[in-house]
């Protein structure tokens, strides 16, 4: 055991212990540390008296302030509902025309709807609602099931191809894969459909194929997409004559759609969002299209 020495730097004595050359000074615990220790302990004890803290068998000390996180959060929820009450009840109860014509109310729709859209819809339709490949653009003028707020609300409520009992159902059959059309018919009907939105495609070279496709279209496709290919919104069949496409409007993608069919999916929000939230979103999405230049 080493001797007690005096450290020349600090002037303190060592404890006389030594391990592998390491010594220790016998410095007393600094007063600041003790003060700090007392302050934190006093604070903790005071806090224990004020709020729920120590367990007592099957119960616990409730604290003098009578605070509990459950009652606190319940009060906050009620307070939040009260703040929103003036517009929330109006959104819920008033008809769409009245809301649409009230600019103040529509400003609330634009701010709260943006947050709802971001948290629930943006994953597929994009933050700006412009969609991406395989997910429809909600800002354009083209609608599968209709762009009126009431129709959008219905789409949100029941979804498309969901398990909801009232779900909207739409299926484009796999004409090629399921051998309803042969390879040449698929190609020609695709050429016809492509020509609907691309008039300059109807060159003399392509004319035979387009005409053959038109016949196939009349017997096979018109029932859903309409005789002129302008779509039928009641069955969710898209307009094929405009420049808006969900899956892509180039010739190869159209061939793929006719060959393999399409069956999109939009979730039902019936039980995930409140009726007021669904209505807010319907208005918000409707408004997105209206604000489009």
């Amino acid at each position: 055991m080493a001797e007690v020495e005096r450290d020349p730097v600090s002037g303190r004595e060592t404890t006389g212990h030594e391990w592998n050359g390491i010594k220790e000074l016998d410095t007393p615990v600094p007063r600041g540390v003790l003060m700090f220790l007392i302050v934190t302990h006093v604070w903790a004890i005071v806090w224990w008296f004020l709020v729920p803290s120590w367990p007592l068998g099957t119960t616990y000390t409730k604290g003098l302030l009578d605070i509990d996180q459950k009652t606190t959060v319940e009060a906050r929820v009620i307070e939040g509902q009260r703040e929103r009450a003036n517009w929330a009840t109006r959104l819920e109860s008033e008809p769409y025309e009245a809301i649409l014509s009230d600019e103040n109310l529509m400003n609330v729709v634009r701010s709260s709807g943006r947050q709802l859209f971001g948290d629930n819809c943006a994953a597929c339709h994009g933050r700006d609602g412009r969609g991406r490949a395989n997910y429809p653009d909600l800002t354009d003028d083209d609608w599968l099931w209709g762009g009126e707020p009431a129709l959008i609300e219905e789409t949100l409520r029941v979804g498309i191809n969901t398990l909801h009992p009232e779900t909207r159902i739409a299926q484009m059959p796999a004409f090629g894969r399921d051998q309803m059309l042969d390879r040449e018919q698929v190609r020609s009907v695709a050429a016809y459909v492509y020509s609907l939105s691309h008039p300059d495609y109807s060159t003399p070279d392509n004319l035979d194929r387009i005409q053959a496709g038109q016949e196939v279209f009349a017997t096979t496709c018109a029932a859903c997409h309409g005789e002129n290919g302008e779509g039928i919104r009641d069955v969710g069949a898209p307009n094929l004559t405009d420049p808006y496409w969900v899956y892509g409007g180039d010739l190869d993608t159209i061939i793929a759609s006719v060959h393999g069919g399409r069956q999109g999916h939009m979730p039902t929000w019936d039980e995930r969002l409140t009726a007021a939230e669904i209505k807010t979103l319907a208005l918000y999405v409707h408004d997105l299209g209206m604000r489009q230049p």
Partner: protein
Amino acid sequence: MLANLTSSERQTALVLAGGVAVAGLVMAVLGRSDVLGVHGVIVMLCGGFVAWRIMSSFYAAEPTQDRSVSYYDDPIKAGIALAMAWAVFGMFMGVWVAAQLAWPDLAFDAAWSSFGRLRPTHTSGVIFGFGGNALIATSFHVVQRTSRARLAGQVSPWFVLLGYNLFCVLAISGYLMGITQSKEYAEAEWYADIWLVIVWVTYFILYIKTIARRNEPHIYVANWYFMAFIVVVAILHIVNNLALPISWGHAKSYTIWPGVQDAMVQWWYGHNAVAFFLTAGFLGMLYYYLPVRAQRPIFSYRLSILSFWGITFFYMWAGSHHLHYTALPHWVQTLGMTFSVMLLVPSWASAGNALLTLNGAWHRVRQDATLRFMMAAAVFYGLSTFEGSFMAIRPVNSLSHYTDWTVGHVHAGALGWVALITFGSLYTLVPKLWKRQGMYSDALVEVHFWLSIAGALIYVFAMWNSGIIQGLMWRTYTEDGALSYSFIDSLVAMYPYYIARAFGGLLFLIGTIIGCYNMWMTVRSAPHAAPERDAPVTPATVPGE
């Protein structure tokens, strides 16, 4: 490594390695229809490889010297090499997952490389792989030197080191295959957990037997901390991992803890893993290597006592601060919060004791990057323990919880404290252990120091910014009382900080790779030091008292 074992010790080692290989075979057969079978094969190969190594020099010459007159340094050397290898792996995974957050396409659309699977390979890689091996290696070194006694076993140190690394391999390979208990920092499944219990209890017995044969009247502070680390980690690990496997042939198990009790047990574990693995163990390192490098006595023995008992007592209560504003009863949250605040005093007492020890050695801190590593570690330790106590206060936590602020806080501790103290300790230890005059290149130590500091600061500042922005965006309402931002809005706001964070992590990783190179070159080519007496006290060397 086998040259130091006698023939009967080689037999023991062979039986152990063979036993592991057989256990692996049993796992492979029972789990043949499950991913457990893959782990069985891995265990079998690991056990078989070690058995083959033992057999290939089984009849080599036995040690002729009396081994009790020298310290047992072979497992320490291997532990340092393993720690640095895991550091590079774990930090690389960290940079990868950080980059995935900024550029999600870096998941390459594969299951094994998705964020959810890679993230625990980073956390386990750095905490258990790097941190754990560094702790085992340095604890073996410190306990021998401060007890002036050789380790109380020839085979058991190897069993602890290699067994522990087998656990790490099982844990991390399991995450990539989707095996997880979904408990943070305790993801490894039941069979790996049982194996770790066996290894850890061996570690405990080895350590306490070595202390029992010490030739010093007192047990040095560093050993208190290493003992606390070993004992408490055993308790935490066993209690949190109590689980029922769905069958002997499946990796999947269910925890025995129900509902909110499971959450409480998990965060009692989680927080004390921070306390006893990432704090107590590394304070053990600090208490030995800092005074040795600074050549100064510890500032205050009394402060050491106060902070040791403060840390061990208060940390045990603090875990519930991870569950503020949850289904956990309010009173449990109050206890977690108040004990977290009281914990600040002993934590700062430790940091202060380390920094005040440097009084009289500040000129060395200026010149010696190795000592500066340890000084900076103590500063980061003080900062992150203050931050931790602050974030444990419920209203503060309501802003910080679930945000990147938490991630920044963890990394202030992990990069700034744990990694820096480890690098400082290893730069002190490597030349001593391999009997070199110093590190191969002091300039590279200096480069490593500044890369680490820059990386840690960039990381922490990026996460402070992004965390507080996130927290504020989540709680901002419009004047109509609706939320102002969607979650995805906050995500878009994080983008620049995620890039900065990945860059900070990359600097830290580059520093670590430079450290590896420097240690490798030190072992290979640094000039030998003149022999100094560094041996246990034996009857022959003790003068009459």
